[in-house]
C-alpha cells in the first residue's frame, strides 16, 4: 500500500454514515431563501380562495347572501354548502370515523367555522369579497364546559347524528357522546384498590393547546379539465394518505391525482388532517378550471385547524405503604370539539393513551375514555407526540409525584422502586403493550448524578425553612419526569388509517457512477430526512451520503408511505430504508463475487465494498459494483441496482428518557426562573447526534411553552380568547431556558438498525418535568396538584390560594 491509500478511518469518515454529525443538505437552500414552500407555488392564472367564518360558537345559519360579494371586483365565485352538495362534498369523512362539515350546513358548531369560500383573482379581492357576504345567524346556546356535555339538558350539537346510538367506536350514551373506550381488567383493578394500603384520586387536566407551526396550513389545487387530472401542492405530513382520501371522497381516479408536499415549514401534527380549505380549493379549481390557492392566516390556524390535548384525566393509584404500586385506574373525559377529527390510527379512538402505565410495573390497570362533543374547533392531533402519548405521560408522571407526596417519599426514589427492570423486557404492560427494550434505572441514576440530585433536595429544604422564617419569598421546585414513549405506528396487525396499513417505504436506485437516489414514503417538515436517510444508506451500502439524493413528498415518484408524524419516520421509514439498502447489498454481493471470481460466501463486507475473506487486498468497492451492475452482471441476472422495500414493523418502538427541571418561583409575582433543565434521552441507535440534539431542544421548547402558558382558551360564549400570537404563548429566545442534553443507548431489538425515534420524546417528557417542578415547589405549602399551564398569574394565584400571599 502506498501513502495515498485511505485508512479505514478515512474511508469510514468519507461515508458520513450513521453516528456522524453530518451537516444538513437542506440548509444550503433554506439559508438562502431558496426553499420551496406551498405559498411559493405560483401558477399562471392562479386564483385565491378565503373563508367567511362564523363569529358564533353555536348558531343556526338562516341565510347566506352573496349578491354584494359577487359584485366586488375580482370576486369570481362564492361557494357554500349548497354548492358543495351538488358534488356530494358538503361533508367529509374524518380520520376518526366521524363526518365533518366542509362548509356550514344549516348550523355552525364552533367559532371561526368555515361558512363560505370566496374565490377571487388575488388574496386582497378575496378578502374584500368575504366582507360583503351577508350571513344571517340565529344564535343557539353554546356548550363549552366538557363536564356539562352529557348533562340531560345539554344542548344538542350534532343534529346530523340524531337517533344514532352507535358511532364508529361503539355505543353512544348521550347526544353529545362520541365513544367510550375501555382497556384493562376492571375487576382485577377494582380488587387491587380494595386491598390497597394507600390510594389517591386526582383530576389531572391537560389543557387544550395548538401545534402552531410557523407556516400555516395551505394548498394550491390545479385541475386540468382536458386530462381530468388534479394536482395538489399542500402542507401535508402524509401526502399519499391525502391522495387516497381525495380519490375516495371526490370519486376521482387515484392515478389522476398528483399530491405534492414541497418544503414544509413545521408540522408538529397540525398538517396530518384533511381540512375544509383543501376540499374547497379543489372544488373551486374544478369549477373555475383555474389553479386555486388557499393560505390560512395565523388566527385561522389557531382557531380552526386541529387543536391538541384537552384531556381531563381522573387518576387513581393503589400502592403499598412502602411505595410499590399495585394498580392504576384512569378515566378520561376527552373534549373533541364539534367533530371527531382526531388524527389517530383508525382503531384507536384515544390513540395510544393506554401507554399510561408509563415506565412502571403495574400488575393491573384499567382505563376508560369518554369522547364528547363541545362547541369548539375539531382536531385532537398529536402535537409533537405519538397519539395521545403526551397526555398519558403527563398523567402518570404527575400521578407518581402525587403518590410520592402522599407516601412522604422522594419522587425519584419512588420511580426507581417501580421501574420495569431490564430483565423484564420484552415487557407486557397491564394495558396491552409489549415494550421492546429499556434500561430505566441506569438512565434515571445518570440523570440524578449529573444534576447532583441529592444536593438539590438539600438546597430545597434549606430554602423552604428560610421561606417559613420569612427570609425569602422564593420557593424552589425540582421536577422529575421519566417517560416511556410508544412510537413507530405501526404494525399492520393493529394500525391502519382508513384501512391502509401503517407501513412505510423506500425505493433506492443506484446509478452507474456510484451515486443514487432514494425516494421515501415519509415527509420531512424540518426533521432533516434528506440528510439522515442518506446516512443510513451510506452505512448500509458504503456509498457516501453526499452521493445519495433523498426525495420525499411527491406521490407520483415516492413509493406509498403513511407520512411523518408520531415519531414514526425513523422506526418505520428508517427501517424500510435499511431493508431496501440490504436488498441492494445482496445483489451487489453477487455481482462482486462474479467479478472477483469467488463464491459469494467467500466475500465479507468492509466499510465501502466487499473483500475476499483472507485476501484483504482483493476487493471491489460499491462504486465499482455500481458500474458493473450496468455492464457485466452474472449470466441470468437482470442489470441495474435498485430495490424497493415496504416495511411493516413487527412492533412499536419505546424510546424513554429521564428529565429533571430545577425552577425557582417568586410567590408575590408568580414569576419563575428555570435554573436548569437536563434531558437524557434514549432513542436507541443514534443516526445523527446533531439532529437529535436539535430535535430535543425544539421539543423541550414546545414542552416549556405548553406547561408554562400556551393554551387555546374559550370564554363562556365560545369565543377563542387566545387566537393570535399576542395571547397564545409562543416563547422567544428570551423566555426559553438553556437546555442540557444527554443520552444512553438501548437499541430496539426488532428494528433493523436498532433506532427508536426521538423527535417527540422531549415534548412527552418535558411537559411533566416542568409541571412537576412547579407542583414540587408549592407542595410544602399544602397543595397536591395545580393545573397547567403554570403562567405567572396562575403561580401567583396558587400562592394566594395556599395562603403564601396575603
Amino acid at each position: 500500500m502506498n501513502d495515498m491509500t485511505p485508512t479505514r478511518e478515512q474511508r469510514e469518515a468519507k461515508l458520513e454514515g450513521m453516528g456522524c454529525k453530518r451537516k444538513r443538505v437542506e440548509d444550503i437552500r433554506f439559508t438562502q431563501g431558496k426553499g420551496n414552500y406551498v405559498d411559493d407555488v405560483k401558477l399562471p392564472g392562479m386564483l385565491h380562495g378565503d373563508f367567511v367564518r362564523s363569529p358564533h360558537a353555536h348558531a343556526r345559519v338562516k341565510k347566506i347572501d352573496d349578491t354584494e360579494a359577487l359584485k366586488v371586483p375580482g370576486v369570481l365565485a362564492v361557494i357554500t354548502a349548497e354548492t358543495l352538495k351538488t358534488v356530494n362534498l358538503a361533508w367529509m369523512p374524518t380520520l376518526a370515523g366521524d363526518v365533518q362539515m366542509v362548509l356550514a350546513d344549516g348550523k355552525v358548531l364552533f367559532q371561526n367555522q368555515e361558512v363560505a369560500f370566496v374565490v377571487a383573482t388575488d388574496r386582497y379581492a378575496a378578502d374584500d369579497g368575504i366582507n360583503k357576504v351577508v350571513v344571517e345567524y340565529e344564535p343557539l346556546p353554546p356548550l363549552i364546559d366538557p363536564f356539562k356535555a352529557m348533562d340531560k339538558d345539554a344542548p344538542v350539537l350534532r343534529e346530523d347524528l340524531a337517533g344514532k346510538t352507535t358511532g364508529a367506536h361503539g355505543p353512544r350514551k348521550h347526544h353529545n357522546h362520541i365513544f367510550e373506550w375501555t382497556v384493562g381488567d376492571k375487576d382485577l383493578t377494582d380488587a387491587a384498590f380494595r386491598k390497597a394500603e394507600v390510594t389517591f384520586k386526582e383530576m389531572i387536566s391537560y389543557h387544550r393547546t395548538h401545534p402552531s407551526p410557523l407556516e400555516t396550513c395551505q394548498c394550491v389545487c390545479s385541475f386540468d379539465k382536458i386530462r381530468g387530472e388534479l394536482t395538489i401542492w399542500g402542507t401535508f405530513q402524509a401526502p399519499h394518505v391525502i391522495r387516497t382520501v381525495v380519490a375516495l371522497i371526490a370519486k376521482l381516479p387515484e392515478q389522476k391525482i398528483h399530491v405534492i408536499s414541497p418544503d414544509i415549514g413545521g408540522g408538529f401534527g397540525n398538517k396530518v388532517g384533511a381540512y375544509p380549505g383543501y376540499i374547497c380549493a379543489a372544488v373551486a379549481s374544478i369549477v373555475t378550471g383555474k389553479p386555486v390557492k388557499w393560505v390560512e392566516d395565523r388566527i385561522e390556524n389557531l382557531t380552526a385547524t386541529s387543536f391538541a390535548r384537552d384531556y381531563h384525566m381522573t387518576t387513581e393509584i393503589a400502592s403499598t405503604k412502602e411505595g410499590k404500586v399495585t394498580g392504576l385506574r384512569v378515566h378520561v373525559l376527552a373534549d373533541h370539539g364539534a367533530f371527531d377529527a382526531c388524527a389517530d390510527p383508525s382503531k384507536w379512538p384515544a390513540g395510544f393513551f393506554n401507554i399510561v402505565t408509563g415506565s412502571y410495573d403495574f400488575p393491573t390497570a384499567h382505563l376508560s375514555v369518554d369522547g364528547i362533543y363541545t362547541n369548539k374547533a375539531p382536531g385532537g392531533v398529536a402535537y409533537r407526540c405519538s397519539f395521545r402519548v403526551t397526555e398519558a405521560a403527563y398523567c402518570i408522571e404527575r400521578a407518581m409525584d402525587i403518590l410520592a407526596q402522599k407516601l412522604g417519599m422522594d419522587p425519584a426514589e419512588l420511580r426507581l422502586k417501580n421501574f420495569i427492570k431490564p430483565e423484564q423486557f420484552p415487557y407486557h404492560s397491564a394495558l396491552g403493550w409489549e415494550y421492546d427494550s429499556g434500561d430505566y434505572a441506569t438512565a434515571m441514576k445518570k440523570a440524578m448524578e449529573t444534576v447532583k440530585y441529592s444536593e438539590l433536595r438539600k438546597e430545597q429544604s434549606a430554602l423552604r425553612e428560610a421561606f417559613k422564617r420569612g427570609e425569602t419569598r422564593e420557593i424552589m421546585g425540582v421536577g422529575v419526569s421519566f417517560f416511556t414513549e410508544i412510537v413507530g405506528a405501526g404494525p399492520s396487525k393493529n394500525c391502519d388509517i382508513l384501512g391502509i396499513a401503517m407501513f412505510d417505504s423506500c425505493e433506492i436506485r443506484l446509478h452507474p457512477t456510484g451515486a443514487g437516489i432514494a425516494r421515501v414514503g415519509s415527509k420531512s417538515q424540518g426533521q432533516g430526512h434528506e440528510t439522515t436517510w442518506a446516512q443510513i444508506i451510506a452505512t448500509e451500502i458504503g456509498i457516501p451520503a453526499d452521493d445519495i439524493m433523498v426525495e420525499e413528498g411527491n406521490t407520483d415518484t415516492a413509493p406509498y408511505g403513511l407520512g411523518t408524524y408520531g415519531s414514526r419516520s425513523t422506526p418505520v421509514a428508517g427501517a424500510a430504508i435499511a431493508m431496501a439498502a440490504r436488498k441492494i447489498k445482496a445483489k451487489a454481493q453477487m455481482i462482486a463475487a462474479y467479478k472477483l471470481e469467488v463464491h459469494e460466501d467467500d466475500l465479507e463486507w468492509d466499510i465501502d465494498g466487499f473483500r475476499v475473506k483472507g485476501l484483504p487486498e482483493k476487493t471491489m468497492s460499491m462504486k465499482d459494483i455500481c458500474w458493473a451492475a450496468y455492464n457485466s452482471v452474472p449470466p441470468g441476472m437482470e442489470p441495474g441496482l435498485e430495490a424497493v422495500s415496504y416495511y411493516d414493523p413487527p412492533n412499536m418502538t419505546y424510546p424513554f428518557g429521564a428529565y429533571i427541571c430545577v425552577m425557582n418561583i417568586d410567590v408575590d409575582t408568580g414569576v419563575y426562573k428555570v435554573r436548569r433543565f437536563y434531558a437524557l434521552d434514549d432513542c436507541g441507535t443514534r443516526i445523527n447526534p446533531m439532529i437529535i440534539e436539535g430535535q430535543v431542544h425544539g421539543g423541550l421548547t414546545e414542552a416549556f411553552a405548553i406547561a408554562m402558558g400556551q393554551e387555546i382558551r374559550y370564554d363562556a360564549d365560545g369565543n377563542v380568547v387566545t387566537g393570535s400570537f399576542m395571547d397564545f404563548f409562543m416563547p422567544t429566545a428570551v423566555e426559553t431556558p438553556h437546555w442540557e442534553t444527554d443520552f444512553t443507548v438501548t437499541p430496539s431489538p426488532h428494528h433493523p438498525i436498532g433506532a427508536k425515534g426521538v423527535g417527540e420524546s422531549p415534548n412527552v417528557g418535558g411537559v411533566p418535568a416542568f409541571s412537576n417542578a412547579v407542583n414540587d415547589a408549592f407542595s410544602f405549602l399544602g397543595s397536591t396538584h395545580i393545573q397547567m399551564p403554570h403562567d405567572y398569574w396562575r403561580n401567583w394565584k396558587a400562592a394566594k390560594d395556599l395562603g403564601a400571599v396575603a
Partner: protein
Amino acid sequence: MPKTHITMKVNGAEVEGLVESRTLLVHFIRENLAMTGTHIGCETTHCGACTVDIDGMSVKSCTMFAVQAQGSDITTIEGMANADGSLSALQEGFRMMHGLQCGFCTPGMIMRAHRLLKENPQPTEDEVRMGISGNICRCTGYQNIVKAIQYAAAKINGVEFREAAE
C-alpha cells in the same frame, strides 16, 4: 382600486412596480418581485418570518405598506450570500451550528441577525437572545441559533469561535 407607481432598491438592484395603496410590502416582495425567501408566519408582526433590512433597520415587512418603502434601500435573504455565491458568515453559521430545522423562520432570523451584528459586532448570549426576541422559531429552541450568530460574529471579526460549554 387605483395603483401607485413605486421604485426602490432591492438587493442592490433598482426595482419598480404598480401597487394598491394597501398592498403590504411582504406581498410586493413575494408576489411582484417573485422573491419568495421572505416568509409570512402570522401577519400580525409577532413572528418575524418576514423580517427584511430597510435603510439600515430590521423591519417586519408584513406590517409596512409597499408604498411606504418608496425610495428605500432593502436587503432580503436573497441578497445575503457572498458576491461569489458562497454562503455568508451568518448563513454558514446557521448551517454549521444547526441553527435551523424547517427553515421557515430562517430568512427572517438571518436578516435580523445581520442587523444585530451591525449594531453589536460581538454580542453576548443574552444580547443575542434579546436581539432576536422579535423572531419566533418553533423548531430549534433558539440555543443553536444563538450559537450560529456567535459563530458568524467570530468569523466576521476574524477571531476563533468557541462554543460555550453546556
